[in-house]
């Protein structure tokens, strides 16, 4: 029996958006998550419950450019394309090198990683600490959403069916910053994180001007607390032990991981707090 599948692959973005305005479709960029999510047994095509729109050939979604000093990244840029692009910050490239493996990096897209909204999404902790915004486009126009508002829960994003994520915007950061990304998994390549962590710090005149942390795979969405971050503004590095202990204790209260097939709640929490403590224990500020 052959089931009829409706699929579209338009040459232009505007035609694609018109179709999305007419019907609710499954959007496929690289497909690295959706093909696994809907996997059938061997030889049987994945069953995707909606009409399909392929978008990863659209050149409009692969642009990277600076506008008013903000960095705009096309949603269909693959990880490999980001690694090669001179505009992408060095710290982000270093993180991408620890994500997946060459074959997936040649296919998986930044927009796809966001819209898949996995609690363990590799790029998400970094995008949270960069205060990234998501640009959604429909036939009616554009709208911009903070990434932390866009991602609402596991596989849940604030996207209407007539919209598409077209760009990810990294707001301009004044001056140098130090950014780290840590991922803990069973294997360096191609592993889904047990815990991930991104840290961002910017100093001005020897004092912390801006500091941000995001934890992945320890809750339904990334864990970030602007209230806790603010407590460190104005401090010097190295931080006092008491300050470090206070911040770790504050996150201890809000990080609530679960047990699953990849790890346990206890392990995740312990490691998440260790990663935080390690980041806070930096002896000197080295912008990257």
């Amino acid at each position, binding site marked *: 029996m052959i089931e009829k599948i409706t699929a579209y692959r338009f040459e232009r973005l505007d035609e694609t958006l018109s179709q999305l305005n007419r019907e609710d479709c499954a959007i496929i960029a690289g497909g*690295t998550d959706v093909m696994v999510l809907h996997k059938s047994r061997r030889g049987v*095509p994945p069953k995707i419950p909606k009409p399909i729109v*392929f978008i*990863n*050939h659209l050149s409009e979604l692969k642009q990277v450019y600076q506008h008013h000093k903000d960095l705009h990244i096309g949603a269909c840029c693959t990880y490999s394309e980001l690694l090669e692009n001179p505009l992408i910050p060095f710290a982000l490239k270093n993180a991408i090198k620890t994500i997946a493996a*060459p*074959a*997936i990096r*040649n296919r998986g897209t930044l927009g796809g990683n966001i819209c898949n909204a996995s609690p363990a999404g590799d790029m998400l902790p970094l995008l949270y600490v960069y205060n990234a915004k998501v640009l959604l486009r429909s036939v009616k126009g554009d709208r911009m959403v903070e990434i932390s508002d866009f991602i609402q829960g596991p596989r849940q994003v604030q996207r209407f069916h007539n919209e598409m994520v077209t760009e990810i915007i990294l707001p301009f950061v004044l001056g140098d910053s130090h950014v780290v990304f840590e991922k803990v998994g069973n294997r360096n*390549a191609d592993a889904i994180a047990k815990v991930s962590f991104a840290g961002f710090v910017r100093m001005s005149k020897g004092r912390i001007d801006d500091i941000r942390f995001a934890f992945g795979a320890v809750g339904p969405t990334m864990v970030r607390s602007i209230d806790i971050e603010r407590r460190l503004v104005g401090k010097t590095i190295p931080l006092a032990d008491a300050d470090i202990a206070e911040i770790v204790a504050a996150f201890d209260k809000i990080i609530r991981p679960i047990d699953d097939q990849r790890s346990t709640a206890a392990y995740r929490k312990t490691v998440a707090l260790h990663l935080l403590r390690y980041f806070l224990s930096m002896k000197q500020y080295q912008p990257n």
Partner: protein
Amino acid sequence: MITFTLNGRTVETDAPVTARLLDLLREEFELIGTKEGCGEGECGACSVFVNNLLQNSCLIPIGSIAGADIQTIEGIIETKQFKILDESYSIAGGVQCGYCIPGMIMASAALLSENPHPSEAEIREGISGNLCRCTGYNMIVDAINLAAKKGDGL
């Protein structure tokens, strides 16, 4: 109907657009050098080139490859680079059961095409998406190292 280039030949298929490239290659085109391991993009046994880039064919819906240039292990077998890799894997003892090898060769070829003289760390990174349950990888790393020396820029 989807048209694309397969190992240098223009081909057509009327398989469903969500069909995996892996299944199409093995079942419709009988190119069984491309293997299925995990079916989730974690093992690399199904690696092919899409427009000269290494990708996992188990994750590719064929609707997304219209007009693309696909090469499988069968498509690179006549290249000088393949012959050197073939020889080097034999000399280094890089092949045991052999199931991962088509994918390993594709990953090795992709690496050497981009970086003809990789360091050991770069070799390990290049094959990091490919699992081998027999060799423990060291002999495969040796094989690629040998191929890099013998190929000298291939």
